[in-house]
């Protein structure tokens, strides 16, 4: 067992964990952060995507011990009771989800994508989201949502600056 300290959605936890425990299981089974789902066991689907120190990671491919000392943001912390993040709003407006299982990971990956490219083309979005699979939407509306989210995020930044 290893003792780790990890901050998740603004709350700091100290946990005794087995070295093999996956971050996603720590989140879901120990911390009750069930907003982040699991879609595969090979790191292919992206459903489990969260931010770790500001960078998106697949939490099924990270060990809990690797998150020691890190700051993790999940979908649950994105708007945390306040108004929705512009990307959440955009997914809603553009009907970019059906069953919603891929959605938490897709939203986190989309936000991460915009860090490097705040105004991505359709092709850039399609390529940027290659690691996140959706079985329901055929991706058209996800692409539209990411564009819309990008626009409102840059508008927000303009207002903020």
């Amino acid at each position, binding site marked *: 067992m290893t003792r780790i300290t990890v901050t998740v959605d603004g709350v700091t936890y100290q946990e005794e964990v087995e070295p093999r425990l996956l971050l996603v299981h720590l989140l879901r089974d120990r911390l009750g952060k069930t907003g982040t789902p699991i879609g595969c066991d090979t790191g292919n689907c992206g459903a489990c995507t969260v931010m770790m120190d500001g960078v998106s990671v697949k939490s099924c491919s990270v060990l809990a011990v690797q998150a020691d000392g890190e700051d993790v943001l999940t979908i649950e912390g994105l708007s945390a009771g306040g108004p929705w993040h512009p990307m959440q709003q955009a997914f809603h407006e553009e*009907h970019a989800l*059906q*069953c*919603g299982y891929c959605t938490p990971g897709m939203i986190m990956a989309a936000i991460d994508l915009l860090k490097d490219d705040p105004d991505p083309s359709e092709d850039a979005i399609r390529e940027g989201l290659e690691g996140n699979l959706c079985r329901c939407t055929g991706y058209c509306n996800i692409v539209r949502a990411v564009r819309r989210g990008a626009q409102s995020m840059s508008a927000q930044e303009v207002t903020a600056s």
Partner: protein
Amino acid sequence: MTEEIDAGFVARQIAESDMLSEPAPDRHEVGAARRRKEDARLITGRTQWTDNIQLPGMLYVAFLRSPMAHARITRVDTSAALHHPGIVAAFSGRDFAGEQGSLPCVWPVTEDIVMPDHPPMAVDEVRYVGEAVACVIATDRYKASDALEAIEIDYEPLPAVLDMTEALKEGSPKVHEAGNRSFVWKFAQGDIDAAFRDAPVVVERTFVQQRLIPTAMEPRAVVAQTDGDSFTLHSSTQVPHILRIMLAQVTGIPEHKLRVVAPDVGGGFGSKLQVTAEEVLLLLLARRLGKPVKWTESRSEGNLTVHHGRDQLQRISLAADAEGHIRGLRVDLLADMGAYLMLVTPGIPILGAFMYNGIYKMDAYDFTCTGVFTTKMPTDAYRGAGRPEATFAIERLMDELAAELSLDPIEVRRRNWIAHEEFPYTTIAGMTYDSGNYEAATDKALALFGYDKLRAEQADRRDRGDPVQLGIGVSTFTEMCGLAPSRVLGSLSYGAGGWEHASVRMLPTGKVEVITGTSPHGQGHETAWSQIVADALSVPFDDVSVLHGDTAISHKGMDTYGSRSLVVGGVAVLQACDKVKEKARHIAAHMLEASADDIEFAGGSFKVRGTESGRTIQEVALAAFAAHDLPQGVEPSLDSDATFDPDNFSFPHGTHLCAVEVDTETGGTKIRLYVAVDDVGKVVNPMIVEGQVHGGLAQGIAQALFEEAVYDAEGNLLTTTMADYLLPSASDLPDFVTDRTETPATSNPLGVKGVGEAGTIASTPAVVNAIVDALRPYGVNDVTMPCSPERVWRAVQGGTS
């Protein structure tokens, strides 16, 4: 109202404190692109997936699965697993033999069908890789999987049976004692021999519908618990109601002691229309251990053991006259059942039997389907279920017929399709298509596609010998959905009816609760049903909430599959609203001191005809709640139930056009343009409809280009992960151009036809037709799916694939 009747203290407070809702008379919700109610929890991570459930004392189950395609189990010893830390129990099939029963198949398509016993956990023999042979129950999920390796099990290998044609040969090893042929189902209409005799044109093809893995993004999960008397089962299922009655039959738990809950469910596509081994076994474990138990599958486990889809060999021939008018169609299918018949396994290819004729007129039709056992995962419903296979075959053949006669593929279709003035039209397969307009959908699609321009570009590339050729694929499809008229299902030997149920509850404050027997898992019923109710009762959209998926709340239903929910369940909701209004009319008449015959409902109020004085529906609901002054003999409730059973299926149709660029040097294909014009009748929410089309297209295109479940020569599944089984990502698919025409269905009062499967059914042949069209100059007349670069390249080299 407080002046007119003594409403009582609570009712008066509701009325006086602004809690009572008001009508929304001027909005038209049906037809509006309402954003979904479901989204709020889904985009904030507050969804209730089955795997989220944690209960005090809950135990975790892991299954040991057969590594052999076919073998006798000669010895099992689970005792060593018990020495592992955290292990509570371990069992093998023998431990369940007396109580586990047999997994049900409810569709015995013929009288003499061979329907072998299907134990949830194998006892003596395994018949596919992945079949459960033992399980351990532990205090956490890691410990459970650790202990699996301590189970000792010996197998005596038996020969695998993998190829359907071989399986039917004399002397083939047998999957089951009774042989490898499960059934032969036939349908014939017209004089097929006459149609083929001296036919100027006969087109013959053999198509392979490859095996597919449905792959809902949420893996299956089951939680079972008992208080010693009754049981609750949470499952990631599309069919909580069917599951309840079936599990009661299999386990002997009385139906009223079993509650089944489908919480939020992350997609299904037919794969969660099943009664699974794990659902049965978890109930038995909860009963045996007295503790709540949970099992969640890994993706690799799911690829092995969630039922697969398609897997048919289609031998098909079409006879036509010299002008391209179809005379007759012969279909001879082999359908791979896999190792056992699951819930509706044998019925899947039979659903296709009525669709091979497509939208076309012909004189004769002959259909035979042989269901074959192999030592693979059983097949069952996957998006479209029988109709994609049929549509693929006929739409591919129409393009081949056009090529044979050097006609444009659109022209050959025009010569054969049912003209819009001919509806209702009874087809050669005995279905009565109630409405449609193939001309309108096709004209719209051609215009959006820029058909003539693309044909000109194609000719130009051919002339130039461009290594990148352009192909144009056509699919003018129809399908039958809205399962279904109970009478028709009965005549097809289906095990139950196809009705749907709804309840509408008027709450004292005028808010509305709708209980539906449909079980959405991404389709947006909470939103669409709210739209229907908002219009029917003139209440605000936000005043309606929709409850579903819990048999303790929604006791009656036939669940969600076969594009049936709106067509059957949505109509039940509408009819329940009508009953609410009828009840309310009598109470309103009493409140207004008028005769019920003089009361009309308009703009959200019941009014005495010709006057302005009235009572809102919410005021009537409150009066019914207070019940201090109701007319004699009237029950104090507006709540109403309705069960709708349609007279006919519904028949959405459309025209899909696909342009692909095929690199003849690498075999690579790229969809350049995809236009889908669908006619799904009246539309409740165009945004949801478009979303369903998009998702359907992605799955149909994926069958054409990417997906295939592959077994090796020993019967091992090679595509157990998402790295091996190629689901399309965003970068693999184009943007889709979608539009609609609208021919209302005549078989239901909403005029709706269903849209869940249309995109999948239509798109596979459109894509393959486009690839073959690109390669015609190379002598290619078919490419086997999935049309991988290697297969396309080989086709270019060899003139066939």
